[in-house]
């Protein structure tokens, strides 16, 4: 190994007990939790502070059936991400390609449905400026959508050009899939709370 090489990318660093990429992604996820936490806190503060009877029930403004189906797409993509990681561990390239490809596809379908929902709202002249609820709805789901888009880009890279590492550095590649998976599960975790907060209550 040359002196310029970054160490502990495929082996555990003794002092942290993790490889560097995993520690990095967990620290990133902690900061992301605070970002979304601030938005959830804002939502709760504005909802509690709203005059009685003025806060709309999510289902009266938003489509619950559409969002339920979309939630299923996102949850399914979380499982296919795990199956892609499992395929890496068993060195089954065909299954890896299939499951990571499905993850990208399901993520893209989730975003497409979200854009369709936005379009429906705009068609009915419901904009972020219409009321506080819609302002929060567009802000929170928009930020979440950007995270989904980011995850799709990373997963698509790992499925395509990034998968060259499958042959050259298989352990490092498996670790990359694991860290990309951690991010993708976090995106799912955020939606698990966004869905009931915005649509069901």
């Amino acid at each position, binding site marked *: 190994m040359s002196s310029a090489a970054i160490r502990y990318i495929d082996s555990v660093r003794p002092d*942290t*007990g*993790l490889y560097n990429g995993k*520690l990095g992604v*967990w*620290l990133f996820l*902690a900061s992301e*939790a*605070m970002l979304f*936490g*601030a938005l*959830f*806190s804002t939502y*709760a*503060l504005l909802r*509690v*502070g*709203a*005059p009685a009877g003025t806060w709309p029930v999510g*289902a009266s403004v938003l489509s*619950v059936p559409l969002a*339920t189906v979309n*939630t*299923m797409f996102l*949850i*399914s993509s*979380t*499982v296919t991400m*795990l*199956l892609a990681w*499992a395929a890496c*561990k*068993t*060195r089954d390239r065909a299954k890896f390609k299939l499951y990571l490809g499905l993850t990208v596809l399901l993520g893209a379908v989730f975003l497409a449905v979200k854009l369709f929902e936005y379009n429906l709202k705009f068609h009915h002249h419901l904009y972020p400026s219409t009321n506080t609820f819609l302002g929060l709805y567009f802000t929170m789901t928009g930020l979440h959508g950007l995270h989904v888009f980011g995850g799709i880009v990373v997963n698509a890279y790992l499925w395509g050009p990034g998968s060259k590492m499958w042959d050259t550095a298989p352990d490092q590649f498996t670790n990359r899939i694991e860290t990309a*998976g*951690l991010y993708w*599960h*976090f995106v*799912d*975790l955020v939606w*698990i*709370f966004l*869905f*009931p*907060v915005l*649509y*069901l*209550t």
Partner: protein
Amino acid sequence: MSADHTADVQKEVRLYIAVFAAVAILTLANVAASYMTSRAIPGVTIAMMIAAVNAVLVARYFMHLPSEGRIIRMVLGITALFFVVLMLLIVFAMANEQGAPLQVPPPVQESGHHVS
């Protein structure tokens, strides 16, 4: 690659699919519960409880949180603490305003007097 390793991974995969089924069923249960109104337990409480169970399942089985090292648990513990503080802001605001909407102070003129 040993047969034992492959068998272990296949066992993990079965667990992932079982957890996925549980999360999907709980999500549908959450939707169903939102259509049932109860005076005893507010809808928000039920929805958040089901979402919390789902979140625990994802964090435990998909993100393998219990098997992570001390440093990760420490980082996430600090994050959770700050998250609780963020949520407590609502309680502080309610205690301060005693339930009244937040008041915006009137604009101040250049002379320093409030506009009536």
